[in-house]
């Protein structure tokens, strides 16, 4: 049994004009003990919303459906009251811009002790000692517990946020773009830390990011999200060498590589609006391999290989039968159409 099973997760946001934004549309994935999973996608694809759903961190204008099963129990079943027991103890989160999410008026040590006391894990001197240990574990001297966040650099604040996440010994750590605002050297340090913690503590990690190379280096598996859905799920090696969805392939092609001289492309067009019903495949307007079926029928996420699934009609059709691709530009000719507006995330 997996540590975490997400089944058919949906999240809707109420919009001020009365309609709903369907931000997460039936997301399902599994996470095993100690596994590192990447959740990849661009802005607006729903990846941050997905992990917020795992923690139940939503404002009142949101509705959620589906199952989030941790150790056999559906924590989404009874709403906020049940999730609170799991929050931070089983699942903890390191937020985007965590270095700016630290309370400037409390010492770092106090901020690590706080969740321990709130969840009844430890208190007083024992908690402070443990806070010191956690700081050491993330590479900060224990004496740093008495310092305030503004005395630390960005990288160290991120480490402190990770220590805070580990306070109640969770089994799953959700990291939302943990290195986005950091320099490449500091990023390497933080990623090394996360991998190390995952290996030593048996911590499962979900790494949310738009940065494919980071996922390739840190995670064994990854799920690629587009327009609120997971469109491909597999090992990072499969995703790079044997992608079974055009978006995955194109996404890798947009990322320049240090040593490769392949052309870097951009994907023309925009992601679809999530406040309207989408007919057919959500990626079809931008896809370079779309055919007739793609505009009328939404592809389901199907298992293609052991541990590799994708939601694309191309996987159903034998090569000889594929009809001529529709209008869309070919791979590499990305300049004629323009980059469109962002969705809200």
């Amino acid at each position, binding site marked *: 049994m997996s540590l975490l099973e997400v089944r058919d997760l949906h999240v809707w946001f109420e919009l001020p004009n009365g309609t709903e934004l369907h931000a997460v549309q039936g997301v399902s994935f599994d996470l095993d003990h100690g596994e590192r999973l990447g959740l990849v996608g661009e802005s607006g694809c729903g990846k941050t919303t997905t992990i917020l759903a795992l923690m139940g961190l939503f404002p009142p*204008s949101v509705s959620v*459906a589906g199952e989030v099963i941790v150790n056999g129990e559906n924590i989404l079943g009874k*709403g*906020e009251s049940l999730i609170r027991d799991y929050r931070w103890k089983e699942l903890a989160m390191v937020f985007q811009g965590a270095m700016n999410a630290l309370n400037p008026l409390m010492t770092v040590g106090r901020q690590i002790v706080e969740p321990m006391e709130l969840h009844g894990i430890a208190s007083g001197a024992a908690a402070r000692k443990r806070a010191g240990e956690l700081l050491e574990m993330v590479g900060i001297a224990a004496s740093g517990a008495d310092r305030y966040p503004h005395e630390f650099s960005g990288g160290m604040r991120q480490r402190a946020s990770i220590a805070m996440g580990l306070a109640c010994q969770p089994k799953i750590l959700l990291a939302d773009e943990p290195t986005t605002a950091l320099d490449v050297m500091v990023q390497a340090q933080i990623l090394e830390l996360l991998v190390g913690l995952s290996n030593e503590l048996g911590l499962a990690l979900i790494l949310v990011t738009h940065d494919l190379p980071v996922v390739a280096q840190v995670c064994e598996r990854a799920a690629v999200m587009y327009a609120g859905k997971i469109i491909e799920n597999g090992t990072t090696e499969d995703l790079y060498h044997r992608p079974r969805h055009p978006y995955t392939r194109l996404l890798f092609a947009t990322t320049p590589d240090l040593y490769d001289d392949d052309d870097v492309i951009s994907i023309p067009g*925009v992601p679809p609006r999530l406040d309207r019903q989408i007919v057919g495949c959500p990626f079809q307007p931008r896809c370079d391999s779309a055919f007739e079926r793609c505009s009328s029928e939404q592809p389901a996420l199907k298992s293609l290989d052991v541990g590799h699934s994708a939601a694309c009609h191309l996987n159903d059709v034998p090569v000889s039968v594929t009809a001529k691709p529709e209008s869309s530009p070919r791979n590499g000719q990305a300049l004629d159409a323009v980059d469109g507006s962002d969705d809200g995330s």
Partner: protein
Amino acid sequence: MSMLLQEAAVGPLPEVSRRPLRTVLRHHKSGLIGLGIILFFIVIALAAPVLMPYSPTVQSCAVFAPPSAKHWFGCDDGGIDLLSEIMLGGRISLLIGFAATLVSMVIGGGVGILSGYFGRWVDIVLMRITDYLLVIPPLAFALVVADVWGPSVVHVIIVIGILQWAPTARIIRAQVMTVKERVYVKRVRAMGASDTRIIARHVLPQVAPLLVANTVLTVAVAIYLETTLAFLGLEDPSSVTWGTILQHAFDRAAVSAGAWWTIVPDGIAISLLIMGCFLLGRAIEDALNPRLRVGHLSTRRWKLRPLVGLGPDAI
């Protein structure tokens, strides 16, 4: 194809500061009420010469006559109809209020912009002057002016104007300092734009809404100050303003005569107008501040929907 794709994208919600006044007021009913109150008083003030039932200076009833069908608000110590007095008084009080506000907005806005934009010694000098004015006790200052120059409506306008521009200058300066650091300002400066152009085309439009909100709120303060100064005898006692009406009432022992009607209606008029200005000003301020949506601090929680019986297509 690209056009279709364009239109297919979600248009982001419009920037709050650019919403027309209509939308602002629709979302803030209190602002609408405030605006209504202010307009009401402006109309009365403008139409006062026509609307007044009796003369505001000539006696038309008994001294301290209580409110009756003929004199809705009764009469004051000189037998003058209070309703007429309040109408005329409103006219002058509003005039003083708006004029003083205009003075303080122009000076305060100007100082704030110059100080915030140019910084360094301009900022230092202007802010020291502003600081000085901020700490002057308003009443003491008014007393001195009245003593030296003699009490008059014009002097009251000047005093209020001088006292009020300092807080405005500080607020505007803070906003200008922020706007100055915006990337688009740096960009046009790097293109060679002159300071005049930057202030006129980029800074002023950003600061104008704040100035408007501040103006409305300053009118409230100006009316209040006028009342106070008149009440303390610093205004020409022969002029008819809301403040002098109150002053006469107290001077002539209206309270011991039990003539509440010489104080209460006037007081209510003042309070109502100040409240109106406050409501409108605050509604504009709120509209400029887009971060006032309900966040997580709410007793309502996110909702769960059952998935029973629904396949992926049905949702």
